[in-house]
């Protein structure tokens, strides 16, 4: 029954580094042709594309016209996207009072509207193709909240509600929408958080690990494995669910 997405086309947003990159690598390892999205045509992006024999898909997800061109380009060359992973996000830490409105809006524009943009552009092709899988990367902070992360947390909470609504809406059409709300993952973001806190990377990891019963941060591979599960036939009865690989930090509903 376990079916890998061999021969399928996947699109992973925000995939030139971090969790997105590892997701792209995992889907490619399972045989999918992966369109690797990020905002700019950088050497980082080219290196990922080359190493997984994928295709470059440059667009700022917050820019609807860029997204439309990107999706049209992928479809014209390779056919409709069967697995879409909405991972692109911005995270800027700071107190609500000190953050100017444009920082607030960047969280909403990229994380929420960016996800909406990509899904709306991909969906017609997915439907024509008879169905597909959409995996949205949310966050534990979308449920628990976090100090100095109001904008980010609000955006991720929005993605959880989007997943639930769209899960209900699209399941009858054979499009399965689920989300992953990772806990603290050992990704490049931890260095950014360490710089923000003015401490070393190891101290930042240790500070986060205190709240994690498993006693460690998660790995990007563990998130990619969860995406692979949600992209496979093995998860065929999951509709609008929020999966929480978080080492036990939050042990209740998202």
């Amino acid at each position, binding site marked *: *029954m*376990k079916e890998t997405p061999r021969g399928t086309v996947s699109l992973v947003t925000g995939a030139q580094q971090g969790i997105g990159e590892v997701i792209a*690598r*995992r889907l490619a*390892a399972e045989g999918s042709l992966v369109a690797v999205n990020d905002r700019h045509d950088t050497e980082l992006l080219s290196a990922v594309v080359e190493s997984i024999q994928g295709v470059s898909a440059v667009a700022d997800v917050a820019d609807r016209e860029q997204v439309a061109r990107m999706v049209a380009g992928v479809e014209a060359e390779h056919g409709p996207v069967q697995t879409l992973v909405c991972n692109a996000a911005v995270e800027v830490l700071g107190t609500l009072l000190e953050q100017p409105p444009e920082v607030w809006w960047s969280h909403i524009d990229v994380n929420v509207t960016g996800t909406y943009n990509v899904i709306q552009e991909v969906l017609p092709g997915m439907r024509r193709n008879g169905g597909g899988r959409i995996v949205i990367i949310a966050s534990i902070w979308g449920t628990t909240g976090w100090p100095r992360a109001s904008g980010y947390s609000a955006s991720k909470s929005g993605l959880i509600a989007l997943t*639930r609504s769209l*899960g*209900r809406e699209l*399941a*009858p059409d054979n499009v399965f929408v689920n989300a992953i709300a*990772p*806990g603290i993952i050992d990704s490049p973001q931890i260095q950014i958080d360490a710089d923000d806190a003015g401490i070393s990377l190891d101290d930042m990891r240790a500070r986060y690990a205190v709240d994690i*019963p*498993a*006693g460690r941060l*998660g*790995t990007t*591979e*563990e*998130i990619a*494995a*969860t995406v*692979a*599960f949600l992209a496979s036939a*093995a*998860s*065929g*009865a*999951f*509709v*609008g*669910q929020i*999966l*929480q*690989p*978080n*080492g*036990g930090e*939050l*042990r*209740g*509903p998202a």
Partner: protein
Amino acid sequence: MERDARQDGRDGRSDGSRSAFVTGAASGIGAALVSTLTDRGWRVAGLDLQESAAELSVVGDVTDADGLLDAVQRAGQALGPPDLLVTAAGVFDQAAFEDITPAEFQRMLDIHLGGTVNACRAVLPGMLERRSGCIVAITSELALAGSERSAHYAAAKGAILGLVRSLAAEVAADGVRVNSVAPGPTRTPMLDRHPEYQDPAYAASLPLRRLVSPQEVAETVLFLATEGTFFTGQTLSPNAGAVI
């Protein structure tokens, strides 16, 4: 991609196999687990009130704590100590709350909550000693949202969620993960006896427009047991959209 052996599920015996102990192994979700795990190279011991297809089939009752402990020890000797425990033994019944007798209510608690506790008690010392193990308790979508005429079943299944979340927090640092799977309405003999779930109008009311297959529940357990290594204290619910 390089993968951790632990994530690939190959850290068991020297021949690479891992062992599992499944309660309620003779039918429905438990039987699907036995065949799925066996197909993927696991050595499986199954306990049920009747013989199961497991490599080691033990006839017993999950409410019998001593019998369960004995069965886990026998399984350990025959197949190696269990890397995975799945508690799938259960009974389903429907009745209006005022018609549920204290004995019927207690029976639900004894089988579901008590049976899960007994099984966890039997495998945990070994798992803690080996600093490795995975427990998956099968609960139900009814534990998440409840339903009419299901108070005793939903209460018993709901209690398992509290058990799983607490135990997960307690043993996480010792390398043991504890999660639950809360299936939606699943095509099993247990549900066949309840005509409302067989009504095509019921399936049509689900976002997925069909019931869950036992195989899909088994695949979810397998994911938790192999690659789901950062999941603990969680509830995964393959439920066809019944509870979102």
